[in-house]
C-alpha cells in the first residue's frame, strides 16, 4: 500500500497510510503513516464500535497536518486489549492463510450468482472492465 501512497503523493495528492504492521510500513516508507497496534484485519478499529472507529480515524487524520517530516509515522494511542497474547499468536502461531486460487473467491454463493448474471441493469454496481475482474 505504501507503494501506491508514494505514487499518488508524487502526482500531487497528499496521502496518509494506515498501518497494522510497523516493520513493513517502516520498510516501504510511505510519505505519512498512522500505526494502530491492532491484529491484522482491524486496520481502522473494532467491529460494531462506531464511536471507537471515529476516535481512531480522528487521531489518524490529524497526522495530515501534524507530521512534517517525510516518512514519519504517528503511533496512535489505542491498544487492542490489556492482555497481549494476541501478539504472541500473531508472531508465532500457525499459518492460517488460504491457498492462492486464481478464480474469484466469493463471500457467498448468492454473490457468485449475482456477479455471473448478465442482468446489469438490476445490479446497480460498477461493472467496468476493472470491476468485472
Amino acid at each position: 500500500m505504501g507503494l501506491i501512497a508514494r505514487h499518488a503523493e508524487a502526482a500531487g495528492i497528499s496521502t496518509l497510510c494506515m498501518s497494522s504492521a510497523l516493520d513493513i510500513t517502516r520498510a516501504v516508507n510511505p510519505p505519512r503513516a498512522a500505526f494502530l497496534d491492532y491484529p491484522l484485519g482491524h486496520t481502522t478499529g473494532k467491529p460494531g464500535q462506531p464511536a471507537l472507529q471515529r476516535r481512531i480515524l480522528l487521531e489518524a487524520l490529524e497526522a495530515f497536518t501534524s507530521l512534517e517530516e517525510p516518512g514519519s509515522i504517528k503511533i496512535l494511542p489505542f491498544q487492542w486489549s490489556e492482555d497481549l497474547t494476541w501478539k504472541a499468536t500473531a508472531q508465532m502461531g500457525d499459518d492460517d492463510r488460504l491457498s492462492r486460487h486464481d478464480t474469484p473467491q466469493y463471500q457467498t454463493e448468492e454473490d457468485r450468482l449475482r456477479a455471473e448474471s448478465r442482468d446489469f441493469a438490476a445490479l446497480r454496481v460498477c461493472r467496468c472492465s476493472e470491476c468485472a475482474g
Partner: protein
Amino acid sequence: MHVDYITRIDRKYVSLGYDPYRWVVNEARPPWQPLRKPLSRCRLGLIASGGIYVTGQVAFHYKDDTSFRAIPREVITEDLRATHFAYDLTDARQDPNVVFPIDTLRRLVKEGIVGELADHAYTFMGGIYSARRVREHLAPRLTERLLAERVDALLLVPV
C-alpha cells in the same frame, strides 16, 4: 513490543522451502505534498486493500490479483463483502468498517471534519507478491482515477 511480521513471513517462506521474499525497502526520502487546504475543505479519497467488493461485482481471486473495484461513496454498507487469503475475515464480514471505514468517513463529512468524499472508493486484494506489478500496473491506474475525481487527500487502509 510490536509484532515483527517480516520475520514471521520470512520464517514461513523458509519452512515451505521457498526463497526468502524480497521485501520492498525504500531508503530514499518519500515524495511530499502538504495539504493545500484544511481537511474540512478537502475531497478525500479512500483506497483499501482488504478485499472489499459490493455484491454483484466479481470478487477478487487470491493469486496476484492486481484488479480493483470502484465503490460509490453512497454504497449501502450491508451490500459490502470481504474476501482475502491472508487475514481472519470474521470481523470484516460483521462490520466492514474495520478495514473499509466508509460509515466512519461519511459521519466525519456530516460533522464537517472532512469536506467531502470522492465519488468512489477503490479496493483491491492486498498480498500481491510482485511489487513490480503494484508499481507498474496497479498504482498508476489508481492514481489516474484519483486525479480524474480531483482528490485532494487520500487515506490508504491496508490489511
